[in-house]
């Protein structure tokens, strides 16, 4: 089922609650173009401090693109052009004086496919703190590595095999290693781009539990294709469609009483 003209008109206005009282990220009128393709259209959305927000929607709706605006990963794509006002803690992250390197230290990212470096488990986690100069001594670095692994729920499984390559772990362990690597630089926000799509249900459950714990210290934005996952882990949910942010609101409301017909079609399984 595709959107006809009148629906496109409806799409332009986001329904629900895009703003929150205590935002860490505020995004206003964000547009992204890939060459001639208009991937994100006039999206305005807040991400609250200490919340998990799910971004859902059919494939190609722009949710991953939106996520990649938040840590300027789109900069690495030559043809991508981002406009609009995106602020982290009130600071425009696309301002000229903002260094994307520093920004990415503050906004960590976990990718769809686990992508540990082809180095040892220890080195995988130690890399971030090392390049950012977070540890002044080897002991301090050890502390950061072990506590990051511990917070990612991986320490017990790997404590005797720190020198083994990170790529030798199972898929779920690799993803938790990537999470440990991300939290090792102590970011303010963690972006997760379908972190469980390559994992089995048990590994997925572990990561979902982990997100619940991580929420105490970090704000999390997660892109997911699994509506059950969105319902389980997030407090708020944003529904994207054809580059528009259609609806955003509290997760249980979006899933039980969606305001927009497209959202309803999607969450009830009629499209997507």
């Amino acid at each position, binding site marked *: 089922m595709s959107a006809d003209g009148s629906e496109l008109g409806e799409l332009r206005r986001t329904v629900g609650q895009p703003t929150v009282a205590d935002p860490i990220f505020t995004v206003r009128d964000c547009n992204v173009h890939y060459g001639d393709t208009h991937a994100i259209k006039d999206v305005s959305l807040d991400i609250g401090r200490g919340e998990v927000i799910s971004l859902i929607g059919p494939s190609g709706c722009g949710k991953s693109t939106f996520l990649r605006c938040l*840590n300027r*990963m789109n900069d*690495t794509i*030559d043809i991508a052009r981002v406009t609009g006002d995106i602020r982290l803690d009130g600071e425009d992250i696309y301002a000229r004086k903002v260094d994307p*390197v*520093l*920004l*990415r*230290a503050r906004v*960590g*990212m976990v*990718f769809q*496919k686990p*992508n*540990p*470096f*082809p180095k040892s488990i220890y080195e995988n986690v130690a*890399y*971030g703190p090392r*390049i*950012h100069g977070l540890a002044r001594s080897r002991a301090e670095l050890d502390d950061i590595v072990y506590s990051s692994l511990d917070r990612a729920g991986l320490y017990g499984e790997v404590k005797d095999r720190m020198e083994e390559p990170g*790529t030798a772990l199972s898929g779920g362990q690799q993803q938790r290693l*990537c999470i440990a*690597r*991300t939290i090792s*630089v102590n970011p303010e926000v963690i972006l997760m781009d379908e972190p469980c799509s390559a994992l089995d249900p048990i590994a997925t459950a572990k990561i979902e539990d982990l997100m619940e714990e991580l929420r105490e210290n970090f704000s999390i934005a997660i892109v997911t294709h699994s509506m059950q996952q969105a319902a389980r882990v997030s407090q708020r949910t944003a529904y994207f469609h054809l580059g528009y942010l259609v609806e955003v609101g509290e997760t249980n409301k979006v899933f039980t009483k969606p305001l927009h017909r497209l959202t309803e079609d999607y969450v009830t399984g009629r499209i997507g």
Partner: protein
Amino acid sequence: MAEINRKELKSAAETRKLVESSLRSRYARERRFQAYGIAAVVASVAFVGFFFITIIAQGHTAFFQTYVKLDIDFDPVVIDPEGGREPQALSSANYQKLVKTSLEKLFPDVSGRSDKRTLNSMVSTGAIYELRDLVLADASLIGKTRSLWFPADDELDMYFKGRVDVDVDETSRRFNDKQVLWAESLREQGRIEKRFNTIFFTSGDSRDPELSGIWAAAKGSFFMLLVTIVIAFPMGVAAAIYLEEFAPKNRWVDLIEVNINNLAAVPSIIFGLLGLAVFINFFSLPRSAPLVGGLVLALMTMPTVIIASRSAIKAVPPSIREAALGLGASQVQTVTHHVLPLALPGMLTGAILGLARALGETAPLLMIGMVAFIVDIPQTPLDPSSALPVQIYLWADSPERAFVERTSAAIIVLLAFLLLMNAAAVWLRSRFERRW
């Protein structure tokens, strides 16, 4: 729009029959396809095998050299008639006479100028220099008699290596019947020995085949490759990294890319002309020097290195780059910490294969004067020198029978180096290859 005729579905048995009958022709096609492949492989292996067998059959004898034992009487009357033992007098003495005397003693019934000259020519002229060096090193030898081994002249050497066909009419041979008799007589007296040919591996070129060697050329090649790798590898890798990771994607960069690819296909002799014009005529670098040869070969190898390095960089999964960037690594850190280590085996493989090609290159060296008759072993990259393939080319052009086997032997040495370099490339690839 075409009319669609909805036919009745075929029965299962009928479908099965059709598939079975098509299977036979499909399998036949597969077998035929495999046969073509096998034929191609067999043909290329046969050619390579034929090539190796010919070269080795021709060349292996050059690794041994016939030596002749002579009883040399260090006659003071000949060497130092004045008795002063002055180095000047000792070095200019007539050592040829010592060899002559010794040979005449062995064959007292040889008479006539022409026969005597033929007899004398059975021992290499190198004997004279060897005797001089012995006397200069130890003057107490004068007045004594010593049994010494000297390299045989190339014709005698060829005779003992079975490369002289005695059934051919004497007039069309360079080794006549008398020489055959003398050679056999020497052999009966135990004065002939075949030894490992150290001369071949330690000396430079010579007009006398038995005194010629590949060391000067090998050293020239070594210096040249050294210059090539020092210049081509870092520059090629740097260019590849810049083009792959940093350069904006615009028309200029596309143009550069196309030109690099074209450069890889430019005939090597053109690079020789360029080297002549730029390095020798403009920068006034010395002619025939391995430095210039290395620079020219570096220019020639660089496109290959760039192309190989770029594909090695491209083969690094983008997820690794994203992981590093997402963690806050700068672009240079991402490249040096992650992309480069992963791409290095591929880069090295490409560089070594490029160098192997440079090692075998002759044409550009002709243009910069490295096709020279080099007797002295080059000590620095600025000394006049030739290179292994050039030496092969020069020997292949020489009329002496003995240069035929030396040509093949030099080819064997060159091939050994090439195989060694290719093996190194394979080893590097397997040693540093990582899986992710």
